[in-house]
């Protein structure tokens, strides 16, 4: 388990306030008027009035991409009377990349990502009801074939409770592909995989083969099937749908903004 940060200044971005470990407060009054961006030595910084934004572990908040900084600043500026941290997905992703609270290195992160393939949603099929099995075949087979062709691997699918049998060579291919991403982008990729519960859907999304909405739909295929049969409960179904879309969109945008190739940005990103 990760050690909690040494100072009690743990969680608040600007002032110390003695909360536990890495748990940020859910809501807080907006304490700043203006949000602006500036360029420092390590990259782009966010200014709340005259104060510089810091991470939960009190590091200076710097991001390598100007577009990402602008999007983060927009999150902070969109807050009305209270700051709703749970809506600020890009800020959270940047904090995770900067603090690395789970203290994983690149290899561990890649291993965690590829491990998802063994229980990948789109490979895990049901046998009944037949309508759902058919839906899974029609909607998921194309994306599995796409991944197999694109990465030149064998994946397949399974109705077995143990899941598909993924050949070692397939895992190796994905491991070496993911190794080409820098640490920041990898945090984003691992985040998207955890949200969608699928490595294949995540790669399909990051390779721009499908949109966020489509990826989320495919991830929630069984829920959508049940909703079509039994109806949608707005405060649960739509709520979860919007949250999943928001997180997946944030993760995808984060990966793309952190993997833009330019020599200046490569110097700023820590690998």
């Amino acid at each position, binding site marked *: 388990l990760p050690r909690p940060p040494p100072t009690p200044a743990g969680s608040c971005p600007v002032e110390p306030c003695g909360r536990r470990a890495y748990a940020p407060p859910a809501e807080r009054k907006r304490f700043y008027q203006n949000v*602006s*961006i500036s360029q420092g030595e390590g990259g782009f910084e966010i200014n709340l009035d005259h104060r510089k934004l810091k991470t939960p572990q009190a590091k200076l908040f710097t991001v390598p991409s100007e*577009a990402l900084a*602008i*999007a983060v*600043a*927009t999150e902070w*500026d*969109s807050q009305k009377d209270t700051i*709703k941290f749970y*809506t600020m*997905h*890009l800020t959270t992703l940047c904090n995770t990349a900067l603090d690395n609270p789970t203290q994983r290195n690149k290899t561990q992160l890649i291993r965690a990502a590829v491990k998802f393939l063994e229980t990948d949603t789109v490979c895990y099929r049901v046998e009944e009801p037949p309508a759902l099995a058919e839906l899974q075949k029609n909607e998921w087979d194309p994306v599995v074939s796409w991944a197999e062709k694109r990465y030149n691997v064998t994946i397949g699918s399974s109705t077995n409770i143990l899941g598909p049998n993924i050949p070692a060579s397939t895992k190796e291919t994905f491991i070496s592909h993911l190794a080409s991403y820098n640490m920041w982008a990898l945090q984003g990729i691992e985040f998207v995989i955890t949200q969608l519960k699928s490595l294949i859907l995540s790669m399909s999304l990051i390779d*721009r*083969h*499908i*949109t*966020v*909405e*489509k990826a989320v739909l495919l991830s929630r295929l069984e829920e959508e099937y049940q909703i079509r049969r039994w109806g949608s409960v*707005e*405060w649960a179904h*739509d*709520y979860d749908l*919007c*949250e999943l*879309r*928001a997180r997946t*969109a*944030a993760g*995808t*945008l984060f990966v*793309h*903004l952190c993997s833009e190739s330019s020599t200046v940005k490569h110097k700023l990103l820590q690998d």
Partner: protein
Amino acid sequence: MAALGAPLRTFRALLRELRHAAGRSYRDTPAYRHVLAAFRAHRVTSEKLCRAQQELHFQAATYLCLLRSVREHEALHREYHGRGERSPQEVAGLVGFRLPQQPGGKG
């Protein structure tokens, strides 16, 4: 490449979302200016060949999805999950009862 539709539509919707988020001075916000500049610089048209344009369009569509979903999620949260717990009086009122004022359930 993902099925995205017309780039103009995506960018217009994105600018609209930014307007919702910002309020009065939306035109001065860095995000609005950045999106507008990116759109003009790449002169997004319906050409299917340019890869940079497609990547930019995908990015715009993703950001649009993010802004929209966050707004919708917050609206749902406020509507259904934002009220906290009901007081004992309210709970009693749900089934048409009133809490007693005196001990023993009288009055």
